[in-house]
């Protein structure tokens, strides 16, 4: 058996270069997936011949207004944005105790009205504060009911909490600035 040669080894030294090249290509052409945000549902358009919606008693509405200068007016009182979360929580979880706050979380409605010149940044801050208020209340409720965080609940359990504390945020037509 003569002439059976070994296959020569391939030089793998340039492999690193090739891999680096690919790596840099992907670094440049891709972005990190940072899709986060505040999810909302828009209300359907009002139909013309639709029956008038039932009147909600004033105590069950929590009016939040933001003007063109990004000032906050909550229930006719100026308020700092940092206090909005606790004010909203107090309103939602009132359970009929105070007579100008809500009867129960199920009927409580947060009404949000902004000006056309309100900055988007401020609007998101307000929405964020309200979302935080609802999320903290749901967390408390789920801790009480299931001894778990709201986020860790199963779908059915989360539905129970969602029904107990529905997120009723209604947006009024903005004022022309």
């Amino acid at each position, binding site marked *: 058996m003569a002439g059976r040669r070994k296959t020569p080894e391939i030089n*793998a*030294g340039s*492999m*690193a270069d*090739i*891999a*680096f090249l*690919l*790596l840099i290509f*992907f*670094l440049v*052409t*891709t*972005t*990190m*997936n*940072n*899709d*986060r*945000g*505040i*999810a*909302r*549902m*828009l*209300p*359907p*358009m009002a139909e013309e011949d639709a029956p008038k919606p039932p009147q909600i008693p004033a105590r069950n509405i929590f009016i939040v207004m933001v003007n063109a200068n990004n000032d906050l007016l909550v229930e006719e009182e100026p308020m700092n944005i940092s206090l909005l979360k606790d004010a909203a929580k107090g309103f939602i979880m009132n359970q009929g105790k105070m007579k100008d706050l809500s009867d129960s979380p199920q009927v409580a409605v947060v009404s949000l009205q*902004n*000006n*056309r*010149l*309100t*900055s*988007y*940044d401020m*609007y*998101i*801050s307000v*929405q*964020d504060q309200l*979302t*935080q208020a609802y*999320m903290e209340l749901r967390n408390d409720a789920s801790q009480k009911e299931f001894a778990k965080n709201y986020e860790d609940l199963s779908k059915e359990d989360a539905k129970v909490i969602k029904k107990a504390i529905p997120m009723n945020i209604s947006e009024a037509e*903005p004022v022309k*600035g």
Partner: protein
Amino acid sequence: MSRFKKKGGGGTPEMSTASLPDIVFMLLFFFMVSTVMRDSSMKVKNILPQAMETKKIKHKSRVNYIFVGEPMDAETYGNQPRIQLNDALADLSDIQSWVVGFRDAADEKEIKLLIASIKADKNVTMGIITDIKEELREVQQYKINYSASQKAK
């Protein structure tokens, strides 16, 4: 006669670089998995507002983006906030046909799950955002998302 005499000159031995490709490939795969292709070039300024209670969007294929902000090219388009759909600047009136367009492209079962994500610059005013929301309501695109970056807790 020393038993432990060094052979050769005594320079530092060469390091083996055989595992270098493996390391680089590992990095490469990490980036391939954790990133996505940049799909549209930005024609408007877009610095997202920050929020604490943000949620991650799970199904990326169901999301369609409406970018809002001042045009990058202020000389041509002025400095009023504009809307960008896909790769081009658009007007309010284009939103409805744009929604119909991505609905046609989507799977029939998923039409109700499609999300319109408003990626607006934090310096725009609510006027244009409200107009966009009205347009979306008119084509029954109710599921929306306000894009925001996560504020550190």
